[in-house]
């Protein structure tokens, strides 16, 4: 089942002096349950592509379909709502809300979606357990290590049961041990719960774990390899 279709997408940035063709005609499909890495050097257009997939940026040309919704056709207010219900985000610098505890960060979106307390508590505990932080439920981000914070971020991204999780360089700020733990957790969630992960990275350790590696250069896909499991 396809969760995401990218069809001949272009993104052109026009500033007064330069015209940048950041994404230049990319076409990609993602199936449910994929564990895919988008790799490429800085400036290759992978973050731009990820932003467009996540509905944070609109393509200049082309279509991005999530299930059967064309993101380009959504108004900005319904796009925010669409993101909340369908897409999980993990950012390079964790981006947790510093004044809230791990638990509160994870249940933030469930709160926005008005889940009742019982459901919320169950799901939050389940997710924090899945990322191995069931004993840090009431810690604030400042009391957690980078790796732990990123695991909270993964739990948060999964909170609303999204169609897929977008992770923009999730391991860039982590040491190798934390990277490994995080990747193991993501892999486990992928395998056991069938959660689709798409991440941009230039971290070899991530690439090694990915079952599909899409290489981008100058805004174009130059290779798309699927590994046999």
């Amino acid at each position: 089942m396809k969760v995401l279709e990218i069809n001949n997408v272009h993104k052109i940035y026009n500033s007064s002096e330069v015209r940048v063709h950041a994404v230049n005609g990319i076409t990609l499909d993602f199936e449910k349950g994929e564990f895919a890495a988008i790799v490429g050097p800085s400036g290759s257009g992978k973050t731009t592509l990820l932003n467009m997939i996540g509905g944070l940026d609109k393509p200049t040309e082309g279509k991005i379909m999530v299930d059967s919704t064309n993101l380009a056709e959504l108004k900005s207010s319904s796009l925010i709502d669409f993101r909340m219900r369908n897409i999980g985000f993990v950012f390079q610098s964790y981006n947790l809300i510093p004044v809230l505890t791990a638990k509160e960060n994870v249940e933030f979106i469930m709160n926005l979606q008005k889940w009742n307390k019982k459901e919320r508590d169950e799901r939050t505990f389940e997710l924090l357990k899945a990322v191995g932080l069931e004993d840090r439920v009431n810690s604030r981000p400042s009391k957690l290590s980078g790796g732990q914070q990123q695991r909270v971020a993964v739990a948060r991204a999964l909170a609303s049961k999204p169609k897929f999780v977008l992770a923009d360089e999730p391991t860039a700020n982590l040491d190798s041990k934390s990277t490994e733990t995080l990747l193991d957790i993501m892999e486990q969630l992928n395998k056991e719960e069938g959660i689709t992960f798409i991440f941009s990275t230039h971290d070899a350790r991530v690439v090694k774990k990915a079952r599909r590696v899409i290489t981008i250069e100058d805004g174009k896909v130059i290779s798309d390899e699927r590994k046999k499991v």
Partner: protein
Amino acid sequence: MIWKTAWKNVWRNKVRSLVVIISVTIGIFGGIFSVAVMNGAIEQRVDAAINEEIAHIHINDPAFRDNYDVQLTIPDINRVLQAVNKTPGVKAIAPRVVITGMANTATKSTGVQIMGIDPAAEKEVFRLYETTLPETGDFFDTESRHNLVYIGQDLAKELNIIRYRVDESVIESLAGKELPETVLEKLTPYMGYRFKSEKAFKKEMKSVLTLKEQHEYGKRIRETAWSFRERSKMTLTFLDRDQIQTGAVFRIAGIFDVKNNMYEMGQVFVRNQDLMNLTGFVENEIHQLVIKLEDIENTGPVTEALSNSLPGLEVMNWKEIQPDLAMMTDMVQKFYAILMVIILAALAFGIVNTMLMVVLERTKELGMLTAIGMNKKRVFSMIMLESIFLSLFGGVVGMVVSRLLITFTATKGINFQSYEEGFEAMGYSAHIYPVITPAFFIMVTILIIITGILSSIYPALKALKLDPAEALRTE
């Protein structure tokens, strides 16, 4: 969740938030406390005016007020009294004969309004009798076969009935009041002196005491040197009921002190019995009925009811008799609100500034929140709530502090002793008991919330304009 997050966000940068909170606290406290002091002064003035000077409603002939013609008595008084007694809301009635005349002593004379009263009825309406100065007598309580007059302190001073003397007992008593030796020494040369008037005494004191000494001890010295000889007399001259000049010698029954120069100077009270003998008025020939109500709030309706049941007579309530009081009580409420609005408007700029910093500092986080699905309405509410919490927290602290200080000062009052003469010249007491109504706190709370909302709009709009993709890239 948004409420909780907003509240926690307030405490993110504690120092910055505290600076805003403290400024709001000080502003609100300053505003409320000044309002309480002004309000206290005005309420005391109204209370004094009503309970010591004018009561709630006066009834008299429509032309009587024009020039106080002695012949304009209230016709058919028994019927009028009956009608007034039947009117609901009326608590007490004091009938008065009002005659304009002159008060004289050997050295001075001045124009006064002579009130012929029934002391018992008068006590039901006014508590003027409670203001009798100690050791000057009483409000006609002591029986006497002489004509008696009850006068104000300022009139007594003006007519040189109150004098000033310096003798051993005065010096001794002053020493007991902790006056420094140097001041006492300056007073000793005056031992045995009598001063005919306050003015003369003050002048003399001015010549020997320094400004600072006058300011600090002047009042105490005057109060101690104050002397009133019992059974002092004065002459009152006036027209009798046939418009013929008459007059008599009156003994001072007592001296009252109502903290209002004009009233003390202008009114003297005599027993109606004494006045009838001199003027030829008979019982039930009176000029004015002075009425006290059960509740001041009913002034309007009772005035109307009395006007309807007493056609041909003038019925005036305190707001009409003293429009300045009515204006004060009605207008100051608006003035208080304006004062608070001005204070809050100034504070609002500080809050706007802080909230702009907040948005700027949290650009990345706000971008993240929009990315993961927090919509504009919620981002806006969160910023707005932070601003409301910030201002309301400061406001509540300010209100609590002012409430405490008002309660504290309300028992003892604040004494603006050095400005006493000025206050009393305007009819105000210099000893003020701050007062504030709960309704005022409610109004201030609403104003604070409005301030919080208004000062968050601009920063919140800035937050809404953030592009999530771009905001996430900021470091």
